[in-house]
């Protein structure tokens, strides 16, 4: 009972923390609006350091709480330096004989003064070096990978001593079995599902964990980066393509049971369809999580715009409700991604019975 209460208190604290981080800001109403907008925009972007929160002191100095992460650049040789040198875009980093500066969260090569040139669309025209930095998102991916590795390898070890699940495995085993029995087997079939289990399980737990972490006030937002979802969708596409059987290709390029002329028309459409499938996977995950984060943060931001007991508490209730909904969405998107991946794998290995008319 006591531990339950503690968990609830911690959960409440987690919900409240983001409010605290904005609460420190001061200004007039329009200032607050633009500040909230900038804050949300900032939240959606990847950063070079791991920031917990930032505030402005009465003297107008920006204070950042967090820790720096390594910046790794390929710019006429490998350049590695700490992101603390970038000073959150407030000054130019001097590394070796090159100068780098952050502009709107992106890193550009500049001259010694840190001049950034813009074109007519207000896009920076400076050179962008090849950037392999351990950014906040990369750092989070590493931590999540490590977490999953530790939790599941420990869980696997327990099975060596006893066939029955114990500890954390009691919660995780039903989920693993759910992925196997309700996602993999019905969609792929009993014959082939084993080859795909590792990918499906990893994708499911990876997306779920990272989505859940995105709801904590740590400000993590990995799955609302198009690069991350693109990578996951690309892997699904590659696995589908490279494990596909003859039947799969035949149904794309030369469909049985369809008039010859129609086959010529349908082939490019079907081929395009194979690309649209992973594309929609990528967009779905990205858009759902991004939209969730924007709406949730906007609702939290509304509290500081209303500045009245009624309005603020109403937006708090809304934000709280949406937060719970986002918990569902976090699991649902992981489920949908895994489910559709399994569906595509299933279509790749499906063996059709050509005696029937299609």
């Amino acid at each position, binding site marked *: 009972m006591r531990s339950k209460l503690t968990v609830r208190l911690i959960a409440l604290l987690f919900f409240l923390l983001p409010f605290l981080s904005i609460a420190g800001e001061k200004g007039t109403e329009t200032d607050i609006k633009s500040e909230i907008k900038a804050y949300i925009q900032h939240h959606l972007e990847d950063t070079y350091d791991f920031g917990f929160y930032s505030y402005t002191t009465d003297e107008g100095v920006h204070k950042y709480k967090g820790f720096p992460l390594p910046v790794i650049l390929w710019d006429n040789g490998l350049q590695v330096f700490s992101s603390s040198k970038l000073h959150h875009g407030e000054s130019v980093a001097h590394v070796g004989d090159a100068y780098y500066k952050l502009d709107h969260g992106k890193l550009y090569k500049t001259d010694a003064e840190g001049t950034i040139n813009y074109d007519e669309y207000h896009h920076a025209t400076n050179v962008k070096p090849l950037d392999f930095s351990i950014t906040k998102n990369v750092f989070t991916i590493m931590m999540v990978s490590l977490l999953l590795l530790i939790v599941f390898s420990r869980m696997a070890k327990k099975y060596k001593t006893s066939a029955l699940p114990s500890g954390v495995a009691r919660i995780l085993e039903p989920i693993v079995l759910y992925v196997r029995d*309700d996602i993999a087997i019905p969609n792929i079939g009993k014959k082939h599902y084993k080859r795909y289990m590792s990918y499906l399980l990893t994708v499911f737990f990876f997306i779920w964990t990272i989505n859940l972490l995105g709801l904590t006030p740590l400000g993590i937002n990995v799955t609302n980066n198009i690069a991350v979802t693109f990578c996951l969708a690309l892997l699904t596409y590659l696995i589908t393509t490279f494990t596909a059987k003859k039947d799969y290709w035949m149904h794309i390029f030369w469909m049985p049971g369809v008039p010859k002329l129609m086959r010529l028309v349908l082939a490019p459409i079907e081929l395009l369809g194979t690309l*649209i499938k992973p*594309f*929609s*996977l990528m*967009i*779905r995950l*990205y*858009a*759902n999580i991004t939209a969730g984060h924007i709406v949730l943060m906007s609702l939290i931001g509304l509290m500081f715009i209303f500045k009245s007991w009624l309005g603020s508490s109403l937006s708090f209730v809304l934000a709280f409700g949406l937060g719970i909904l986002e918990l569902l969405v976090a699991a*649902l998107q992981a*489920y*949908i991604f895994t*489910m*559709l991946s399994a*569906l595509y794998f299933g279509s790749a290995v499906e063996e059709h019975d050509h005696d029937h008319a299609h």
Partner: protein
Amino acid sequence: MEIPSIVGAGLIVIGAGLGIGRIGGSAMEAIARQPEASGKIQTAMLIAAALIEGIGFAALFAG
């Protein structure tokens, strides 16, 4: 007169919303008719809704 892309985005959202609504409604009816098959119906509903949602998002971002 040029129609701004936000109007197109709105139309897409209306379409996708109607589609997902229909799927949800039909799934509810199906579950009411066959409560024992609710698990399978839910799965099929989620997949269909996700597909429409995906197309909706894709069109939204393309617009």
